[in-house]
């Protein structure tokens, strides 16, 4: 059975979804979804181990070898992202039962789990596959599920947010499809490896350039790269809290993965440099994104929205890492994938606990929260410190590698900019802490969030500290993945 792991990673949640629909009772559906998610974590752990041991795993679906059939191809990069996505997916589903109790009417809850599993399977499928059309198919699955999930927010504005995302997301997906179409007409193949072999000969072709441009813009729409980020704050702010936590920690990460995959493995590092100054564009957009989004975040009254803007800023850091264009820069990006998933997962889950108590995440509910919900607030403090990049948390590790990468290139202005960006994060986190600890709350004192929510949140918060001190696993994986990507493709 071990040789089938690559495909099991995806089909376990994929087939669990329709099975979940058959159950039709919220509790049963939840337990079933938990089981499926935990099996996928185990599988992704085994996959990391197998790739580490035996190198790249290739699995021919239907027994047809690539490029005739569809190939699943797990290298270190995909194993690493699979681990992030399935790990977060499992922790979130643990908390989901409590979190959605007040946010989603009970008739809809079984369907919620079906969509959740579909979304998870879609994201995993994008990462596991080695075939660009298959990427598109799974992108569609995860996006469709995401739109429906976002629309489940209690606020009526969730519908509008989901619709906005639907339009933008569909444009992004269409751009990707157009890019794939151009590539097929040019090379006659859909397999990534095969494409990587055939594209260098066609470097000067205008069609290859157009395909590249369409793919990049399409992925960047999904990624919410500044200035294509406008869908994200609304979607994150109005979606059910658990959905926000799941998406913030996984969906953008998968989009970054896709960007890296297309850029490095399909077209090759040299391609972009030869046709357009992609890296400078990434650097500029990343920096502007960090500053603009952080400044907007400072003014947000709704804390969910605040962290949504902060996510846009964090995506900026990841893009800067790619833009630096060295192994260390890419490693910083990959590290930040992992670390940002941990921090935003913890923060948004803590917000889910606050929404569970107060019905919304408005900043006025934070008054006196330090006494009312000491644990939840402590987790927010840890997540916040991590977001700023205080030593001892994972945030520090990402910033450290980013600065190291800039240092290698002697780009002092970039180092200063990254530090300034962290200062902006200090401002918006401090605002929360000030309200929570130094302002008296009105009304009766309310208790802590239920344990079923608190435990997964605490696990994520502790992971923030653990991986901030013992950095071996993410650093090893991201380092080898980055070197592999620069060393001539997977």
């Amino acid at each position, binding site marked *: 059975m071990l040789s089938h792991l690559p495909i099991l990673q995806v089909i376990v949640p994929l087939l669990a979804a329709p*099975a979940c*629909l058959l159950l039709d009772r919220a509790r049963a559906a939840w337990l079933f979804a938990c089981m499926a998610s935990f099996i996928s974590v185990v599988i992704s752990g085994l996959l990391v181990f197998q790739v580490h041991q035996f190198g790249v795993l290739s699995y021919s679906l*239907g027994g*047809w070898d690539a490029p005739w059939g569809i190939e699943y191809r797990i290298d270190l990069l995909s194993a690493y992202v699979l681990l992030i996505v399935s790990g977060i997916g499992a922790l979130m589903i643990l908390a989901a039962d409590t979190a959605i109790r007040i946010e989603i009417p009970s008739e809809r809850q079984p369907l919620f789990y079906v969509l959740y599993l579909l979304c998870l399977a879609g994201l995993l499928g994008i990462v596991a596959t080695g075939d660009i059309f298959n990427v598109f198919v799974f992108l569609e699955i995860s996006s*469709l599920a995401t739109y429906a999930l976002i629309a489940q927010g209690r606020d009526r504005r969730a519908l509008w947010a989901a619709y906005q995302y639907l339009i933008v997301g569909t444009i992004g997906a269409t751009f990707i499809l157009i890019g794939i179409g151009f590539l097929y007409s040019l090379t006659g*193949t859909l397999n990534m490896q095969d494409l990587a072999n*055939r594209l260098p000969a066609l470097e000067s072709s205008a069609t290859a350039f157009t395909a590249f441009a369409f793919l990049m813009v399409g992925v960047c729409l999904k990624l919410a790269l500044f200035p294509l980020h406008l869908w994200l704050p609304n979607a994150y702010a109005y979606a059910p809290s658990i959905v926000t936590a799941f998406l913030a920690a996984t969906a953008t990460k998968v989009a970054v993965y896709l960007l890296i995959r297309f850029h490095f493995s399909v077209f090759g590092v040299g391609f972009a440099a030869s046709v357009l100054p992609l890296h400078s564009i990434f650097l500029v957009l990343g920096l502007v994104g960090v500053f603009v989004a952080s400044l907007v975040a400072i003014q947000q009254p709704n804390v969910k929205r605040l962290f949504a803007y902060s996510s846009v800023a964090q995506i900026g850091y990841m893009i800067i890492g790619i833009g630096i264009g060295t192994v260390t820069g890419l490693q910083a990006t990959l590290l930040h994938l992992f670390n940002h998933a941990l921090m935003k997962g913890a923060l948004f889950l803590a917000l889910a606990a606050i929404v569970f108590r107060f019905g919304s995440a408005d900043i006025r509910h934070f008054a006196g929260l330090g006494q009312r919900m000491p644990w939840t607030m402590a987790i927010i403090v840890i997540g916040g410190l991590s977001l700023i990049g205080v030593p001892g948390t994972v945030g520090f590790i990402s910033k450290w590698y980013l600065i190291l990468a800039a240092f290698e290139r002697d780009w002092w202005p970039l180092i200063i900019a990254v530090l300034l960006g962290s200062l902006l994060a200090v401002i918006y986190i401090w605002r929360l802490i000030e309200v929570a600890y130094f302002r008296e709350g009105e009304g009766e004192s309310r208790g802590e969030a239920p344990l079923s929510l608190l435990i997964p949140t605490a696990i994520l918060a502790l992971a923030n500290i653990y991986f901030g001190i013992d950095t071996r696993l993410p650093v090893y994986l991201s380092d080898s993945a980055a070197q592999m990507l620069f060393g001539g493709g997977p």
Partner: protein
Amino acid sequence: MLAGIYGLLSASFFVSMDAVDVAFTEAAVGAGVFPLLMLTALTVAGRYEQTVHRRPRAAFFLVLVTGALMIVGTLDMPAFGSLDAPAHTHVAARYIELSPTEIGIPNMVTSVLADYRAFDTLGEVVVVFTAVVGVLIMLTPGEQRQQPSPANAVETMRSHMILRVVSKMLIPLMLLFALYVQFHGEYGPGGGFQAGVIFAAAIILYAMLFGLVKAQAAIKPSILRLLAAFGVLLYGGVGVVSFLTGVNYLDYSRLATDPVVGRHIGIFSIELGVGITVAAAMILIFYAFAGYATGRAEAE
């Protein structure tokens, strides 16, 4: 209405490109079901929209740039229909040369989508499934809204005698044709997607003429939900059976002692799964919208 015309035109376009299978689907979905769903959605939505007077210059500019980029992209593309275009010489060549012996069915489109790239097709079926779950979760009434009471629902077309008689004769033929398309997919244009849509169209026609209540009595929504999930499970289950026979996921070669027969069985089963899910999904989406519309009409 324009969408319907567009659907028909692109269907004919596909025919002229020799993609009869796609044309089939496009004619049924693009020209039939899609405008119908749009109309149903329109009856749910308000009649007027607040008009905003703003000239989106930037958007117009972006559209121009995108269009220009697409034209630039076509410049270096291999000439249309050229024999030595990579699209015809690389992967496709093998499909054309070897699929008759490897898979043993005359319709190569089916060979590609149900065998060589069967996993993509599984993905597409899941997309359809996701769409229907999405529609269901959006239109499932929450606590505050009541289920529309079936007693008040009206038969909309009671007076149209001719329509009723003609459709009574047509519907069985449509169902029969759907089954033909379903099981003939290996030999001619057709397959699960097309058959599912045609089957659904027959039921939707019935629902439109004889009322939602009668249609729902004939085919219950709860059963359709089971069927929608069952289709996906059937498709995915074939893959799991492949595991058990000791080969890779969705490899049908060991489903029978002769690999070619095995592939026949595999393709037959997954096409059935596709057909079931697609038909159930289409009907469910129609039910959901139509039920929502009548619910709204009663509330007002």
